[in-house]
């Protein structure tokens, strides 16, 4: 296969800009090897393909050593871009990085455009469309878990899983096409009931995949967690403990948090956006104040609500109204966990009894001491994942485009099933299956009528 050999060699920092232990400068193109050898203390050869070689990077004039680093050479086409490629792992100091890149540019490399490495990989057939999208996702993945999902997609896991669904769809479509194109005698060549069962089975598989998107999306985009409670029950302290930062303004004066505060944290690999709202009292009093309006919109758009009470005090009138509020505005709409804060100050038996009436998870914590916080985090994770916690090996749909294609495919398949039950014309049924296949094809590559015919000729005895 002919490679995409552009005349120029491109270079860029591949790790995030800023200070860090290690930074990777990546260079791709036919000149990569000769350029790095002009700077490196050792001479890399073709045989060093995929070997990490330690040494120093010097200026081209060899007057000044820039950094100690590890270089790795990948010989095309066995590289990310399909071209000769060098990765220089240096120390994560912006000054050093800049110097190295500048030296390489002096020698004839040029700074890569955003996404240019990936574009070259794509043009050199190193990845298909779904993989190319996965690359973008890897770059954007904010968390370990998200990264793992993206990496699996990159390995073609999505293509495989959808591929097996597609194969079964091709089988079903073949049965119908055979009847339309090869059966002149109006004899039923397949059993409708069996085809229906197989289609229902496929629907279930697609549903399962679609379901993974619900938490796949959580991994990818993050979870919105809303803190609700009366003023001064310790929402902000809890936020600080969860975020392990001194972020929100902590004060004993009720209603200190006038607006809302957002904080990003990670819990068990989830990126979580915590929203701390104005105290619930305002909500209850229906004061038309900006903060309260936002609290209401936040409830509807959040993935989980933490309703915070104090454990050491009897419930007062406001608490009771808050409970009523939870019952009417939150329960059944958004999952919520009752958090009993200030557990370090004691416990009121009546409070517990009352709150059990909400029939939801209840966790006692102390934002001050940090007691029971791990349990709270665990509960948060469980509530978000429900029973469907992603297994490590499982394919998770994280890409909105994939989800949409699966949705459309599912819709067509559903119409096929309803159609077969109500006796719709077979040619229409066949076109539903074809649509279902076409939509899947948008993820893993097109399916042509030739594919169908090949399957038919391979599997069935055709011809009078």
């Amino acid at each position, binding site marked *: 296969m002919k490679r995409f050999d552009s005349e120029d060699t491109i270079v860029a920092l591949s790790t995030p800009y800023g200070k860090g232990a290690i930074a990777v400068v990546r260079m791709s193109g036919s000149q990569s090897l000769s350029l790095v050898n002009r700077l490196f203390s050792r001479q890399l050869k073709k045989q060093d393909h995929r070997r990490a070689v330690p040494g120093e990077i010097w200026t081209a004039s060899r007057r000044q050593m820039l950094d100690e680093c590890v270089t790795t050479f990948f010989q095309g086409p066995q590289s990310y871009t399909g071209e000769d490629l060098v990765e220089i792992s240096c120390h994560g100091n912006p000054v050093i990085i800049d110097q190295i890149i500048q030296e390489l540019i002096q020698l004839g490399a040029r700074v890569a455009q955003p996404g240019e490495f990936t574009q070259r990989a794509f043009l050199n057939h190193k990845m298909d*469309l779904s993989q190319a999208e996965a690359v973008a996702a890897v770059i954007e993945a904010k968390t370990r878990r998200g990264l793992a999902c993206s990496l699996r997609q990159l390995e073609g896991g999505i293509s495989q899983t959808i591929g097996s669904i597609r194969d079964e769809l091709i089988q079903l479509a073949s049965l119908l096409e055979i009847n339309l*194109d090869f059966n*002149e005698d109006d004899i039923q060549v397949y059993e409708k009931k069996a085809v229906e069962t197989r289609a229902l089975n496929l629907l279930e598989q697609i549903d399962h995949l679609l379901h993974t998107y619900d938490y796949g999306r959580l991994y990818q985009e993050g979870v919105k967690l809303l803190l609700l409670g009366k003023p001064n029950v310790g929402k902000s302290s809890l936020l600080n403990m969860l975020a392990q930062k001194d972020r929100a303004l902590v004060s004993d004066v009720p209603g200190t948090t006038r607006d809302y505060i957002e904080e990003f944290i990670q819990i068990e690999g989830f990126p979580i956006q915590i929203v701390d709202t104005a105290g619930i009292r305002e909500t209850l009093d229906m004061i038309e104040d900006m903060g309260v309006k936002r609290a209401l919109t936040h409830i509807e758009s959040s993935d989980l609500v933490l309703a915070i009470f104090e454990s050491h005090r009897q419930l007062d009138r406001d608490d009771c109204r808050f409970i009523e509020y939870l019952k009417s505005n939150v329960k059944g709409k958004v999952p919520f966990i009752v958090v009993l804060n200030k557990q370090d100050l004691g416990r009121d038996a009546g409070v517990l009894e009352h709150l059990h009436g909400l029939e939801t998870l209840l966790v006692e914590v102390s934002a001050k001491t940090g007691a029971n916080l791990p349990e709270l985090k665990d509960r948060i994770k469980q509530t978000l994942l429900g029973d469907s916690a992603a297994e490590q090996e499982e394919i998770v749909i994280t890409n909105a485009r994939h989800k949409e294609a699966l949705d459309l495919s599912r819709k067509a398949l559903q119409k096929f099933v309803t159609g077969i039950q*109500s*006796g719709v014309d077979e040619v229409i049924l066949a076109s539903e299956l074809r649509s279902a296949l076409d939509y899947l094809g948008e993820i893993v590559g097109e399916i042509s009528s030739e594919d169908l015919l090949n399957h038919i000729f391979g599997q069935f005895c055709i011809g009078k």
Partner: protein
Amino acid sequence: MYREVDVSRETQEVVLNRAYDIVIAGGGHAGIEAALAAARLGMRTALVTLRHDTIGKMSCNPAIGGLAKGHLVREIDALGGEMAKLTDAVGIHFKMLNKSKGPAVWSPRAQADRLAYARAAQRVILDQNNLKVIEASVTGLQVINGQVQAAVLNGNEVLPCRALILTCGTFLNGKIYIGLNTFASGRAGELPARGLTEALVDLGFVAGRLKTGTPPRIHRDSVDFTGLEEQKPDNPAVPFSFQTKGISRSQVSCFITYTRPETHELLKSGLDRSPMYTGMIHGTGPRYCPSIEDKVVRFADKERHQLFLEPEGINHPEIYVNGFATSLPEDIQLKALRSVPGMEKAQIIRLGYAVEYDFFPSYQVQHTLETHDIGGLYFAGQINGTSGYEEAAAQGLMAGINAALKLRQQDPLILDRSEAYIGVLIDDLINKTIMEPYRMFTSRAEFRLLLRHDNADLRLMDHGHRIGLLPGEVLEKMQLKQQRINSLLEKTAKINLSPVQFNPLAAEHKSTPISQSTPLRQLMRRPEIPLQALLEAGGVSNGYHDDELVHVEFITKYEGYLKRQKELVAKFKKIEERPIPADFDYRSVPSLSNESREKLLQVRPASLGQASRISGVRHSDITVLMIFLEKYARQKSDVSRETS
């Protein structure tokens, strides 16, 4: 029939004292349509064939139409071709296939009286103005500056012409196999055509080899039909041609029988003398029409295979044993046949055989069927790698039309995939790698719901009339049909049915009753109630033709699906309209895979849409191509800015 010129048998060239606009080589189904179209469009036309009495011969089974093929015949008719009319004149068993599977795939098929068909075709050809038949073999062609100048007949006679259409069927270096016996032949009992393949290869064409086969023909009186399943023709018969008023010939039945395990054993015992299994045949046969020995070997677990006994005519005693194509030796053919119920005493009139022939992979032609490299040279039919009378006739018609239009300096007639099966056929031929004889299937048409046999007239008659093949009164009839359809649609949109009118009907057809007056249009969407009954209940004066009712019923019931197909058509046309410049150099796109680049250079697609349909061109390469076409377009516009 006379020879044009009495030619002396000298080796030097003799230039015939007559010149033609268009010469057609071959008098099969492609040749007939090509010759008639050319002559009817005012071209001085000559049809060159070895024997005039073999014009219109049905070499394979005596049936026209069938699944997807029936669509082609209707389209040929709508454009002003002949096949449908010939079939109507000689049909002895008409049947609408796929009747239970939805109007989009209904396909008409007819058994024809084989000898009567050929005679009818010959009569039309002989009566045609502007058309001469020349008995000869086209053995070569003269080309100057990439333009056809003449056909060479019988090795040394030069017949000047401005366009040459080759419709050689299986005759190019045809070779017949029966068991281990093999002999050069174009068709049972006829000589092959020699020299033409070599002449074309000398001109730079690439040739390949394909194979097809036929079953034995047996004598009607030797078959015991008593225990066999009878298939009766439709009554009344639906004619193929939009111009035919009714079918006059008496109709006969076909019969169905099945092989037995014993048959399979007998067939297997002959495999050591099979030209297929001993490797004598190199050409690829069609997978959709395997020989009986192939079926028995490849699908060993099938206990029986269906055989369809087709009468070859009313006064003709031959029976065509469809499903029993074979090239096994004579003794095996006979023994195996006689093990089949009803055929215990079968007498074979003609043996089954396999025939191997040359074809020219069809990427070498354009959508007009004119070859890329030689102006005025057209290929149609099996020479392009197709199989089937209907596929051949469709190409012959289009080649004849386009050759004439080009000589008249008019725009070509190119049907696209959303317009006609003929469009699908030719586009596939050009873009798909032909590995086996190509046959039309409805599944090849992505816009299947729009391309129905019953609306071929609405789809194509405007074209037929515009180019001058379809008489004005036929077009008017179609326009009247369109008006009646529109008015019926309007009526059904206005009328409401009351519960009193509708509910008895609902009860009869097991449908849900209504409680208040409901628009007729809405009730028409219920699949269980026929339109006719609804119209009667609504007091709409009937008298609509079946075709019109089917049409209205279809577009009402499947409105949503038709809308979606139309959206897909729009999408298809969009990418179809992204042209690839003729001077675009695929070698300048380094990241194309070698396979894709090779295919693109071969086919020379006119648009990105066409490029995306070429087999072997990867999807990712189309994306790459898109990037580079964009680059190319930008460069071009830069240049023009500089020079202006």
